[in-house]
């Protein structure tokens, strides 16, 4: 399982909107401040698709992450499930 937590502010809304279109992803407003994006497998996000500026992209998981970053580039990130401690 991979979980991405996204703060409910305008600059990170594109992450939520992008995740809604992904197969196997469930997106919930689980708390007043955060969206919770969950997938049983990996989650791949694309910067250009989300139209995120680089300075925001590099902090994309600042809301919290349960997963491991398997690939990390200027335009694409792939997060996979992990047993690493939270």
């Amino acid at each position, binding site marked *: 399982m991979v979980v991405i937590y996204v703060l409910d502010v305008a600059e990170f809304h594109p992450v939520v909107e992008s995740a809604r279109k992904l197969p196997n992803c469930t997106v919930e407003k689980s708390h007043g401040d955060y969206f919770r994006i969950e997938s049983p497998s990996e989650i791949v996000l694309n910067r250009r698709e989300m139209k995120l500026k680089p300075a925001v992209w590099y902090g994309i998981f600042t809301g*919290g992450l349960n997963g491991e970053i398997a690939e990390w580039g200027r335009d694409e990130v792939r997060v996979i499930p992990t047993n690493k401690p939270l």
Partner: protein
Amino acid sequence: MSDPKESSLHDKARSETAFNKPDYWVGDADVTSLKRAGADGIQLRLDGVDHTARPTWKLRETIEFYRDILGLPLVHTISARGWGQVNHPDFLHFFFDAGKGALIAFFYYIGTDRPEKYEPEDHWFFNSNHTAWAVDSREELDRWKETLEARGLHVSPHIRHEILESIYFTDPNGYPLEISLRLRDIEPLDGRDAELTLEAAMQLEDELRKNGDRLHDIDTVWRRKGKLVQDLIDGGA
């Protein structure tokens, strides 16, 4: 350093002011021993920035840059025979108005050379110590970039951050300057989120230090933050 004769002249005017007493120099204070603001019920209040100050060894260039090129009014200058401390150089301390009462100030220590450790370097450690001024509209941000470039300065492209969009340039001392447009209001949830991010980092640092280790990456912080946010969700907070 001034010559010995000069020093002795200045010594006669030595005075025991707050500047002579390094007791308040608490760079190595044990923060854990200090009383918390919540403990005494006193809410101290600030009303924005009065001034920031840095040393300069380029008198004319600094004045011309801030006053004549950026166009910030020169509003105050102190010229003094030291502050009453032994061997304190004579100095000029001058202030430019950056709007809303916020001043940017410089010290020019007469007869001194810039020590090597104060030379600017193109490194994020050095550049993190910077001044960011606000503008109130995108048009004004654009106008600063276009106008400063037309005046011959090198200005960075617009950088869009989470809550700011900024342009960057440096002054003749190598000090970084930033002009920022706030993209949205800061909301209470921003503060709550900030607390969680830093709580995650502090928890991890404390845990790792006990084992003689340290934080190595932000991923670890993001995972602990994920735990803290999930706890919030589970707690129904």
